[in-house]
C-alpha cells in the first residue's frame, strides 16, 4: 500500500491519447445508454442527465447530488449521528408543516 501517492513507475498517471479521448468517452456513454435501456427500472441512476452547467470551485454545495448520503457507520460519533438524525427529521417535519 502506498503511504504517499507520488509519481513513480508503480503509480504512473494514466494518459489518454488526445485523438482517442472522444472515442473512449463515446464508448462509455454508449454503454451507459445501453444500460439505461435495459435497466429502465433504475432510471434515476442510468439516465440522470448532467446539469446544463458544470460545477466549479465556487460551487461548494449546490452541485452535490449525493450530499445527503449518510456517513459510514463509525465514521462519526454516536452523539453526532443522533443529532444529525434528529435534525434531518426536524427539517423534514418543518418542510411538511
Amino acid at each position, binding site marked *: 500500500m502506498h503511504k504517499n501517492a507520488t509519481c513513480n513507475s508503480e503509480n504512473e498517471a494514466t494518459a489518454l491519447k488526445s485523438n482517442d479521448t472522444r472515442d473512449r468517452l463515446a464508448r462509455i456513454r454508449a454503454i451507459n445508454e445501453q444500460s439505461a435501456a435495459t435497466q429502465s427500472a433504475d432510471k434515476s441512476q442510468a439516465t440522470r442527465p448532467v446539469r446544463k452547467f458544470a460545477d466549479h470551485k465556487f*460551487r461548494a454545495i449546490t452541485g452535490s447530488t*449525493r450530499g445527503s448520503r449518510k456517513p459510514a457507520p463509525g465514521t462519526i460519533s454516536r*452523539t453526532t449521528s443522533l443529532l444529525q438524525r434528529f435534525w434531518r427529521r426536524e427539517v423534514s417535519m418543518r418542510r411538511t408543516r
Partner: protein
Amino acid sequence: MSNTFQPRISLVVIQPSPFCNIDCRYCYLADRANQKVIDERTLDKIFERVFESEHLGERFSLLWHAGEPLAVPVDFYEKACARLRQFNRRNIRIKQHFQTNATLINQAWCDFFTAHEAHVSVSIDGPRQIHDANRVTRSGRGTFEQAMRGVRLMQQNGMSIHNIAVLTRASLEQPDEMWNFFLSEGITNLKFNVEEVEGIHAESSVRDSEDRDRYQAFFRRIAELRKRSGAKVWIRELDQMADRVRFGSDELESELNVPLATLSFDCEGNVSTFSPELLTVRHAKYQHFKFGNVFTSGVDEILHNELFLTAHADIERGVSRCRAECPYFSVCGGGEPSNKLAENGTFDCTETMHCRLTIQSLCDLVVQDEESASVATFA
C-alpha cells in the same frame, strides 16, 4: 454573440466585506485587510437590481463569500435575510450559502444557519500539519484549532459538514493522511480546489507537468481508499467527473463562461460576471471587470457595457476554440475565464494548468476506471 446565448442568473455572489480575519498564504485577494463593510443602502440596491432583472429564473443561489463572510456580525445577515424576503416579491427560490474558514463559528452562527436553512461550506485543508502550513493568522500562527472548533460545533448542532480543501504539492503527496483525517472527523462531503495562480498569488506550489501525475495519483488513491472503506463520502471532483464522463455532451456549459449566470457584487455595489475572482482583477488589455454599479445601472445593462463586450467576445472565442480543439470539452464546458487570464494573459485561449489538472487528468482517471468496470461487466 453565439446563437446559444441565453443568460440566466444562477449564482449571485455578494462580498459583504473584503476583510478576512486570517491570512492564507495562497490567497488571491489583495484587499483582504480592508475592513469596510457593505452598508444597508448598497445591499438594498443590489437586491433591487437582481430582482428587477429580466434574466432571473425561478431560483438562484446566493453565496456570501470573499473575504471571510463571518467577520461581519450575525445581525447583519439577520437584517439582510429580512430585506431579501421583502425584495423577493416573485417568491423566487433562493438557497443561501456561506463559504467560511470556520474560525469564527459560534452558537449564534449555528442558530442562524439553522433558522435560515443556510448551506455552509468550510475550508479545512486537511490534518493540522497540512492545514497550518498555509491557513494562518496575520502573525503566522496556524488556524487549525480554531477552525476545527467551529466544525465540531456545527456537528454538535446536527449540521453536515461540506468542506473545500485547497490542494498544494504537500497535500497531494499525502492522500492517506488526508483521507483518514476527513473520515475520522466525520467530514463526508469533500471538494478539493487546487492551489492556483490567480490574483496576487503569482506562484503556486502545483504547476508543472509532474504535478499532473501527482494530482491524478492523489485522486486514484483517494478513490481506492473510499472504495476500500465502504464509506459514503461525496467527492466533488471524482463523482462529478464520473457523471460527466457517463452522461456529458458538447452541450455542457460552464456557469463561469455564460454572461449573467454568475453575478458578483462587492461592498461598493460594483458588479461583475463570469468568474467571481475577476471582480478584483486589473488587466492591461481588459482594464477591469467591474461592468457596472448598482447605483447607476441595472445588472442587465452589463450586456451593453464596452468592457464586458470585449471580455465576452474573447471568452466566447476561447470557448469556441476549446470546443473545436479539446477532446475533453464534453466534460468541461470550456474552462474558467479567471484561470485563462491569470495563466495565459487572455481569455482567447484554451488549455491552462487548472484544466490539465482538474479536468484532463481526472477525466483520464475516471475513463480508465469506467473501462475497467465495463470490461469486468461484459467479459
